């Protein structure tokens, strides 16, 4: 059972990633691949801070502005230099690989016995305590995001991804909104990288590779589930994305438990995203 509990814990740590990708991909309609770099940036940043040493809570909070900066740079490249959104993300992601490696000074930093916001394995109750902490973090982040999307500023963000002409006619500079949105999105992604690093006990330069697809899988699953509810509010889609992010990790754990090797996980993830993408296009089958 501990195996699934650990998977559940990891799923909770991946919730900010899914919410960040929901924000860029669904709210802003921007395919932002900065994610792969900013996830590792969150992990690398935390590893560097914690070895200083800095208090684990501060170290965790400090990765937020790091991720935001990465997202803002992508936003500026996209809106001010008029580079295609996908390409802007790829550029920043590529640059971040060097930045992350320079910060870490080696490709892998073990974090066993160093500070963490989570309890270490030697505490007998570590799973339940960590679960409680992770749930608290997820509830706070989710509540903040739902609140933000309902504020006047949040309405502007949601409108920006949907009808740029309209918000310009309402006196809003769409570029500014996009930059802020990508900053928030990548701050969440960096937080996710930082949480995952603390749970698995190491930071690795390659841990962000393909992470955007894992996040997208949760977003797609969440969207498919929330469509069942036919509600016009944004509350349900966000909650379903949270739920899907957790479910997705449990699903992967289940697959691994069946004796399928870890190497297949990314292949499986990509296939799953393709499935969700095509099912939404082929929904005439249901009729």
């Amino acid at each position, binding site marked *: 059972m501990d195996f699934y509990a650990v998977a559940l814990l990891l799923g909770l740590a991946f919730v900010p990633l899914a919410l960040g990708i929901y924000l860029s991909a669904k709210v802003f309609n921007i395919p932002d691949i900065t994610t792969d770099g900013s996830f590792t940036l969150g992990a690398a940043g935390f590893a560097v801070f914690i070895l200083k040493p800095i208090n684990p809570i501060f170290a965790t909070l400090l990765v937020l502005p790091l991720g935001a900066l990465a997202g803002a740079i992508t936003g500026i490249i996209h809106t001010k230099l008029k580079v295609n959104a996908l390409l802007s993300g790829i550029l920043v992601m590529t640059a971040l690989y060097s930045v992350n490696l320079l910060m870490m000074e080696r490709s892998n930093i073990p974090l066993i016995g160093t500070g963490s916001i989570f309890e270490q394995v030697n505490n007998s109750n570590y799973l339940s305590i960590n679960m409680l902490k992770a749930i608290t973090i997820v509830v706070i982040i989710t509540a903040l995001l739902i609140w933000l999307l309902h504020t*006047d500023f949040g*309405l502007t963000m949601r409108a920006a991804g949907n*009808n740029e002409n*309209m918000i310009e006619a309402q*006196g*809003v500079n769409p570029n500014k909104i996009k930059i802020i949105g990508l900053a928030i999105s990548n701050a969440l992604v960096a937080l996710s990288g930082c949480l995952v690093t603390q749970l698995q006990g190491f930071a690795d330069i390659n841990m962000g590779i393909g992470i955007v697809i894992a996040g997208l899988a949760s977003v797609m699953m969440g969207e498919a589930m929330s469509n069942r509810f036919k509600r016009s*509010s944004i509350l349900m889609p966000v909650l379903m994305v949270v739920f899907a992010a957790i479910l997705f990790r449990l699903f992967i754990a289940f697959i691994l438990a069946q004796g399928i090797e870890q190497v297949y996980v990314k292949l499986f993830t990509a296939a799953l995203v393709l499935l969700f993408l095509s099912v939404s296009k082929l929904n005439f089958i249901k009729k």
Partner: protein
Amino acid sequence: MVKFTNISKSFTDDAGQINALINNLNVEFKQGEFTMIIGANGSGKSTILNLIAGLVFPDKGIISIAQKEVQTIKSFERSALIARIFQNPLQGSVADLTVLENMRLAFLRNSTKGLKLGIDAAFKSKIKDAIAQLNLGLENKTSQKMGTLSGGQRQALTLVMATLCDAKVLLMDEPTAALDPKSAHSLMENAANIIKEKQLTTLMVTHNMREAVNYGNRLLMMKEGRVEIDVKGEEKMKLSANHLFDWLN
């Protein structure tokens, strides 16, 4: 309210030819004036609206709105003064947001969009009252997504959105072109009422001669970037659709 002084705007086509869209235009629109603009395609009708909205900038000349020169101010910076209704009913509102949320964005046009939960009971009842004036029964659909409504309904709500905050100028570019005759009629009646009530300086481009005759208190006919015919008040009242067809031919 809106004044064009010696405005010219041209563009260079693929062949390198310079084409004048607007040719040394001098015209003034007074407060509360509801002007219909007709003319053949390419006569410069929509360019006049785009120049006022700031989507295109003039090559030379001065545009002033409420005594302020605006010819170099970006569109989102002058939007406080200007409300717009587009030909495509889908363009004026956000499909994925509810009617109320769209209204909230429109209401905030002149103010900052801060971290406030703005849709409260007071706001809801204010919006319901405004929508009820349309007489379309839409006041009960305010929590629906905009995308679930018909083109005519969306265009009517866009009209409410355009007038929610104190814009001085209303620009309408063929607002009824995509609507069925009944919705078009209802939209024009509602627009005429709102324009009169709020004393909006309104410019409307149309290809519908009946609308051009029946609504508004001024009519401009554009030809090759110039004002060919300009009639107001009493004289405008006497016009019939046949007059306009004669002029256009």
